């Protein structure tokens, strides 16, 4: 494509013979409502937060009245703050365990297992998985306390043991909890992905004598890679920023479940160190950005191939 045609396509994609499907004017008008809301309630507070990260702003004391610019001090402090580094480590384990290996794999496994079931059984299984996803967070907290807490927790009663799950296996507890909580999304996306594989591909593979595993590996997975990458991107970002574990463990014991959002909450809203909390939020954003670029790049590579 030469430069001139590229410029022509800058605003609107190449019109097909029947004409442009949406005029420039209506395109702009349709973007206005979202743009206003996003500017005022998303971009402005996000940028404000990033700026606060460069100050020593607190909600109490002298710095509350006249916050000073401290440049990158908050950031250099963060990088040597063992509590912050710990929260990064906890978050990475939490995201890998509950989103990448937990929700994505389990969601796909469910979609794959129930793909040929009669619709009525299929909907029943989907309903319980989705119910775990839509029950309000504060209710879910009580459900999981009843499940795991103390000697009379449901799990201990069934296993006939007496384990303090939240104290002895805190990270594992919130990982399992988050798998339970969020698998629905990956299941729905994987079902959509599986439905997009042309049945003729599967028939051909089966006629050629391929086993289930071979069909999965050589036919299904390559053709749904795009979906899986989008799924991983969204659940990674959502899990990274998820605050719900705090409702179960409060970040404890001893910071073992203190993920980055919990750490930010403690600094910003409990210790009222807003400048520092905002700087951490900026670092979290940068990490999210790197993750998003990584996925975006692999999805482009996938689209190109």
């Amino acid at each position, binding site marked *: 494509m030469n430069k001139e045609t590229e410029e022509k396509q*800058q605003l*609107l994609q190449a019109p097909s013979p*029947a*004409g442009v*499907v*949406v*005029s420039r004017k*209506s*395109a702009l008008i349709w973007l206005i*409502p*979202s*743009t206003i*809301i996003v500017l*005022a*309630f*998303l971009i*402005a507070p996000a940028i*404000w*937060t990033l700026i*606060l990260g460069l100050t020593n702003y607190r*909600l109490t004391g002298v710095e509350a009245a006249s916050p000073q610019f401290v440049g990158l001090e908050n950031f250099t402090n963060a990088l040597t703050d063992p509590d912050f580094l710990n929260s990064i480590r906890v978050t990475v384990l939490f995201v890998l365990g509950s989103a990448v290996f937990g929700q994505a794999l389990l969601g796909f496994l*469910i979609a794959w*297992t129930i793909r040929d079931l009669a619709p009525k059984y299929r909907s029943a*299984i989907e309903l*319980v*998985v989705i*119910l775990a996803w*839509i029950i*309000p*967070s*504060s*209710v879910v907290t*009580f*459900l999981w306390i*009843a*499940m795991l807490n103390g000697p*009379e927790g*449901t799990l201990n*009663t069934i296993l006939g043991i007496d384990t303090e799950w939240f104290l002895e296996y805190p990270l594992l507890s919130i990982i399992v909890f988050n798998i*339970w909580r969020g698998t629905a999304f990956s299941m*729905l*996306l994987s079902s*959509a992905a599986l*439905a997009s594989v042309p049945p003729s591909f599967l028939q051909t593979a089966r006629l050629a004598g391929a086993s289930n595993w071979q069909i999965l590996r050589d036919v299904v997975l390559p053709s749904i890679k*795009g979906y899986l*990458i*989008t799924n991983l*991107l969204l659940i990674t*970002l959502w899990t990274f*920023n998820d605050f719900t574990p705090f409702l179960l463990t409060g970040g404890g014991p001893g910071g073992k479940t203190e993920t980055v959002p919990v750490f930010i*909450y403690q600094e910003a809203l409990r210790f009222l160190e*807003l400048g520092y909390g905002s700087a*951490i*939020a900026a670092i979290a*954003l940068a990490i*999210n*950005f790197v993750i*998003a670029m990584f*996925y975006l790049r692999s*999805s482009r590579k996938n689209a190109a191939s």
Partner: protein
Amino acid sequence: MTQATVKIQKVLKERSVRAYLNRVLFVFIIVSLITFFVLPMLWLFTAPFDASPSLHLEMPDWTLNNFREMVENPYALRSIGNSFILAGGTVLIVLIAGAPAAYVLSRARFRGRDTALYILLLFSSIVTGSAAMVPLFFITLQLGLIDSYIGTILVLTGGLLPASIFILKDFTDTIPRSFEESARVFGANSFQMLRDVVAPVIRPGLAVIAVWAFVNVWSNFLLPFILLRSPSKSPAAVVMYSFYTDGGQAIIRVIAAFSIVYTIPVLLAYLFVNRRYGFRFYGGIKG
């Protein structure tokens, strides 16, 4: 018996053993899955009806008194109504503002469109986090929208729009352009085309986004907690944390009864949408 038939029989036998093992594995997976997902939920269906509920699962001593006690709490039922206002309002604005934007972004190719969408998606993760609460508080205060439903709804909408647009755009990408081109040929204007051609086709996408946004707002604690100052405007997520005695003891009877009343609307919303439109992503979301 010829060698060939022996071989065929052997293969058939192997196949039936394998089919049997597959069957056992299948049943095992299904049963474990259902147990894993249902077990933690059981409390929600026993504790509200138990005369002396506690924070563990037990056979209830059946009663409806917990509900009477909950209804007597002045904030309990009203908070469910407040949650409806917040969730309903947010869903409405997300759809009205998000659908046309998603459509435009799907059809018109702006330079840097994908990058812009990704950056918004990232920003939405800070804004829903706790560090942005103070800036958000000041912005709504300066706009005179503090302690108002509309202010809270707009802030919630801002957080949900990027992901909604992202998902809806992918739904729209799967619709063949020729649909709209023929509508154009028959003289439809842009708005008619959106309403009569595009909206019906992406309706499952709109339904998915509606449920997703509704559920998100329904369970959001932090934003309404900070932006709505009067207790009479508090939604259920906030009021749920007020069922404590003066000594700080949780009143489990009220919490249990409230939990199920608070959960039923999202369950009904899902069942309704699933029945009417099918709660699936169809072709949507492949990045």
